[in-house]
Structure formats: C-alpha cells, structure tokens
C-alpha cells in the first residue's frame, strides 16, 4: 500500500488504528499483528488474530518508528497486534516529556 503523511491504516486482525505522521509516499509493507494493514474502508479478516511474534500490542498516543525513522505511525486506537514493516517490528519513539508551556 502506498503510504504518505496523513494516511490512515487499520489492522486486519485487531483494533489497532494508526495515522502516518511521516512517510516516504512509497509502497510499503506495513503490518500489524504480522498481517498487512488495511485502508479504513476495507473489511477486516474474519476471525484473524495477531501472529505470536507480533502480539505485544499498540498503545494509544504512542508513535512507532522503524530503525532509520523513514516512517512514523501514530497510534489512534490501541490493539493487540504489534506494528511492523515486513517482519521487522517498529519501536516506540521515545520522547522526553516536556513541561507544559502553553
């Protein structure tokens, strides 16, 4: 699926939904729970579950990145699957919380 900044994706096998905050605008094999993610308009896989090696789950409000930060996905709905590109899992983008300033 071609993913650009602003694209919405949903998991085929759990409740996870994400928005691409940063994306190269190319075809990418973005997965959740080990299964390619869907456009929000597509139907979910009946009875599908995340594969064992991609089932740590997603957390709402966290941003997920690949190792060289070419893509950044914001989790807008949490679920049981883990996000990945191909077989490589994405990691939570660690950010230092800042004191409220406005």
């Amino acid at each position, binding site marked *: 699926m071609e993913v650009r*900044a*602003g694209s919405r994706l949903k998991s085929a096998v759990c409740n996870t939904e994400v928005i691409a905050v940063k994306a190269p605008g190319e075809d990418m094999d973005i997965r959740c729970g080990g299964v390619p993610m869907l456009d929000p308009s597509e139907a979910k896989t009946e009875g599908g579950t995340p594969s064992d090696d991609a089932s740590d789950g997603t957390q*709402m409000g966290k*941003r997920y990145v690949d190792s060289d930060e070419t893509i950044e996905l*914001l989790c807008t709905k949490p679920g049981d699957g883990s996000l990945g590109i191909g077989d490589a899992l994405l990691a939570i983008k660690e950010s230092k919380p*800042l004191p*409220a*300033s*406005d």
Partner: protein
Amino acid sequence: MNLMMLLEMASSGFGDRVAIGSRDGSGMTYQDLYDQSGRASDYLRQQNVEHISFLAESSPALPVALFAAAWSGLPFVPLNYRLQGGELQSLAERITPTFTISDGAELQSLISDVDDVQTTAWHRFLNDTRKGAIPEPTWNMDPDEIAVLLFTSGTTGDPKAAVLRHSHLVSYILGSVEFMGADEDEATLVSVPPYHVAGIAAMCSSIYAGRRIVQLPFFDAYEWIDLVIKEEVTHAMVVPTMLSRIVEELEKNPSHKPDTLRAISYGGGKMPRPVIEKALNLFPATNFVNAYGLTETSSTISVLGPEDHRVAFESSDPEVRKRLASAGKPLPTLEVSIRDENGNEVEAGVSGEIWVRGEQVSGEYLGHGKRLTADGWFPTNDGGALDLDGYLFVEGRIDDIIIRGGENISPGEIEDTLLQHPNIRDAAAVGMPDTQWGEIIVALVIPSDTEAFSEDEIKKFVKEHLRSSRTPDKVIALDELPYNETGKLLRRVLKEGLISQGDSEE
C-alpha cells in the same frame, strides 16, 4: 494530518473528561466538544466562505470554532479585538469572503460594512450548533492545508499573516505533549487572548494532554487568583506583566492565595528578574517554566524547566544564576543555531541572530511565501546567544539593536544589567539619534524607591558590569513602561515619547 486528529483521539481516549469549563459539571466534555465541532463544521461549510475568523474574547466558542474550521477545511483566523475599526477592517479585507464569530454588536458593527464579511455572535454560534447530526470524520488529511492564520504584531508597516499549516501545529503537539499526559484533576487557566499563538497552542496542547481548560477572557490579577482558587487550577500560562501584577496582588493581599498551582509557565516577553524571584518565593511548591517561541514557529521552541529554575535560583555561581534569565534549552525536536550577519554559525557565548529549524517551524507569511533558507532554517530576527551548556539567551529583536559609534549593542544585555540593581524594578534601553555617536543609549527605569534614584549611581553600576561604551548615556526614571497586553515592551512608544519630549525641550 489535521488538528482534528488531536480532538478525535481525546474524545475516543477520554471522552467523559471535562475539556473546557467549570468543574461544577457545567463544562463540555471531550465528546461534547468533538460532537459540537462536527456539527459546527457543517454549519461553517454552509456559509460558503474561504476563512473562518474569530473576533471575540476567550470562550468555549474558541475551541469549537478552531476545530470546526479544521474539520471543514477552512483556515481559522483569530483577529485582535483591541484594534481600531480601520485597522480591523483592513485585516478583514484580506481574508474575504469570511464568516466571523464575534463578541456582541459593537465589534460586529466594526467589520460588518466590509464586503463579503458575515458575522454572528459567539453564543449564537454555540446555540445553533448544539443539536443535530454529527458528520462523518472526513476531514482533509493533507498536512499542507492551512490550519491557522495569525496576524503578527508588526512594529512597522502592515501586520503580516503568519501561515500555520496542519503539519506545523500537529508536529508541535505530537513532539511536545504526551497524549493523556495530564492527571484527571488537572486544569489549566488560559488568560492569553485567542489571537496570540499561545492562545491557540493552549487549546491544542491541553486537549491532547487531557487537561481541563478554564478561561479568563479579561486579565485582572484579583480575578485570576480568584479563579485559580475556585476552579482548583493546577497549571497556568502568563505573560510577564500578568505575573508582575499577580505578585503585587499577593503582596497586598497575602491571605487570598491559591495552593493548587503545580506549574506556572511564562513567556511572550522579557521577565524582569525581581518578578520571577518574588514569584519563586511566593510559590515555593510550584514548578516554573519559561517558554520562548514565535508565532512563526507554532509557539514554544525553547524551555527553561522547573529544575533549571531551582538550580539557577539557589546557585552561587553567577554563570548558573544567570540562567534564570535564559529561555532554557531548545526542544529536542528542533535545532537552534546562532548566526552572524553572513549566516555563519558563531561560537558559544557570542551573540547573533537566532535561527531555528524543525517540523513545527513555518516561517511563512500569506502572500510573501516562506522566509526560510534553502536548507530549511528560519532566521527569527531575534538576537540571542547559546552558552557553553546550550542555554539560550534571547536578547530581543535585531531591529532594536542600538548602534553606538559603530558598535552593535543589544538592549537586552543592558536591561539585564540594570535589573540586577537593587533599586530597579523594570528597565528598558533604547537607541536615540545622536549627531556625534549615530545613536546614544537611553535607559528608562522604574525605581522601587524614587527618592533613592540617582542617574550617576546607576551609570556607575552598569559601567562596573559592562564596557563603558555600553553604559547608558542617559538614565531616566519613569513610573511605568509601556507593554502591550501580551507582554511585549513597546519600544517604539518609548522612542516616540523621548523624541517628542526632546522637541518640546528645545
């Protein structure tokens, strides 16, 4: 990307929390705010205009209009309700056709004569969008759509409209605010007006953090304190003049003092050191945060955090103590660099122009394009320096630099020195035309004790700290200094006052 993402997440993550209003149950929840923004987006779309403008003080209509505009794909344009009729009309003409959400009849009449301006009162806007179907969440996700246009308070010429696109504001929030990072009992008091970038940023960051918004439309120190107590406010953002009045009010009336404040952030202008020191003493349990930012950078780019305040306040090392007057360290999500006139980076400790680069940086003005360098840096026109540990010292607008005998002198440096004098409460330094030097330095100070004020003694004090070429040629005692309502020192007013005074003397 769209600002609505932030509100959608808030309503789905913690829809029952109160988003805005009183803790007595009369406020709007995040779900209410989402629903009403949806209905209002339909309402705004039906107006067939190109901009949604907001000519009103703070009220719950502000976040509804801001998010409804984002939902409907129309730029949101807050207008300064303190402007004169003519100024306001010329701004309105630049954004027609526009639909204006306004305070009462008086303000509406100011711009209703302009062609293609439709107006409605904010309470009617809220009433008309309270019931009805909520549209599908089909807002535009193109990150380059315009979210907000903010007219900057230009000191010369026509005000410029800074363009903030959805990508800028969303990047700023995602990079600096933790989703649902606020505890359920947290409330923030917003007393900056909607036409200030901090007023817009406050809506977005509070909603994403899940912190209840309490609004004070017209600042008054007593009212502010009263509202903090009544609403058990935990967070507040103030400009320096506000903090100064709050401190004075608390000194006058020490029993009427809030004890719920966990954090006070300040910014928008230079904070006189005696004010922040008194405030630290008055609120020993409160975290203080100094934020520096510009309209063109989607608000904050640098923060002096609570720990920095405490360390600087308690330190005996003058280098560390000095940091109380700094803007802290740049946000980790962006870069700050100090450049000389040729755009070359200068060493730590050397003053130059503050440049900034990052996803939240727009640096764009409507009709003038982006004022960014080829590699994405925005020259802020603010002077400043970074110290060896990376603390940013802001020295004021480059245009305000005084050129005396060919030497560039930052008024900020002189003002910082003046403020260290025990008898000076507030100070400003400006350059005045002079036949011998080009410009001379005139210091305008507010003494705590007028009787004890001595021009010679203050000159001597500055000379002991700075080079003699940076010692004011004149020191004048005043009762007050002119600030605008968002805490910016009006140097132009001071200069004009000095020039007309000079004319009448001659």
